[in-house]
């Protein structure tokens, strides 16, 4: 069990490092989503289902959607309009 937890935590660190180091934005947002999902699993290991649900819905779900919406808008802006 501890082995599983250690692997999980190592994956967490790897994901965090990969998010920060990846050169493109969209991949790093997607890796961040994976990071949040792993975090949700870590919280299940701590017997906190409330947190796991909240993290999966808010961290991995909503935050990622907002990031992607922003990136998409930025790409749309890159092609056309901008003010001032």
């Amino acid at each position, binding site marked *: 069990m501890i082995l599983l937890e250690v692997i999980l935590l190592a994956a967490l660190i790897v994901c965090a490092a990969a998010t920060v180091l990846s050169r493109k934005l969209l991949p790093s947002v997607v890796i961040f989503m994976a990071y949040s999902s792993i975090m949700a699993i870590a919280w299940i290991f701590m017997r*906190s*289902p*409330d947190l*796991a*649900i*909240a993290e*999966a*819905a*808010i961290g991995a*779900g*909503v935050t990622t*959607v*907002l990031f992607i*919406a*922003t990136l*998409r*808008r930025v790409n749309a802006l890159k092609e056309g309009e901008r003010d001032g």
Partner: protein
Amino acid sequence: MADFSLRKWLDGEQRLLDGERSAVLDTARPKPPQAVRRRQRHRGYLRRWRRFYAVLAVVTCLMLIVALAVTVLYLPRYGAVEDNPTLNGVVEYYLRRSAEETGAANFVAAVVFAYRAMDTFGEAVVIFAATAAVIYLLYITDRPVQLRPARAPKSPRNQILWQTVRLLFPYIAMYALYMICNGHTSPGGGFAGGAILGGGLILWDVALGEDRRETILSPERAVRAMVVCLGLYAVLKGVSFFAGANGMDWHLPTGAPGHILSGGLILPLNICVGVITAGCVITAYVLFTRAE
């Protein structure tokens, strides 16, 4: 004159920029030669400072890691049952008495909405303030306010997406509502349920096609719903704070823990919080993709 403030360090001001970026910057505005020379000298200065600060930051950070890691070893062991100061009377109280006192089977919900209700109200205000700030930034302008389609008009609706979402959406909404309304009996609650509801609304909005001007829930309506829910929260909790501090015995019937109609104020508060979270999520998404 080099600027020694932490701000420069934070933003990496005028770092020697790599090829692409310096191309952007040089074409931005031609400079007279003297100014260029001065600027280059300035830039050299700042680059050295920048490097110094980067090294400083890394060193500070490493020191912080080591200090924290050593500190961690002095803390009570993870999961310890003995010698653990966190297992004191307070936790005992929550676990032994909260079920009968608040009527909620979920201890976390009891703590969030009954014992530490003020924190949760503050948190709901944070969500509301963030929504208001997003609206302030992206929505209100001097011109008449309007949303624009996220994609060029008349682009055909994606049929696969539309059919899938039409099938899925009722289940998502039902799941979210279940989670919000059962926050006091099972894990979940208003925040997670509200986020799921907001996600479902986003999906619905995407599937309806992004060439429309109107959205599934306009920011004004979302704000109105949020204000009503926050007001309700404030009134309910204000009365309960007042009654509690003055020793009056005012509370809703607590009911049997585990039953849907139990938990006194927790169920209405969960619904309020769910609406607030969902409103924040959908408003932020709508404005990110469609604001003029």
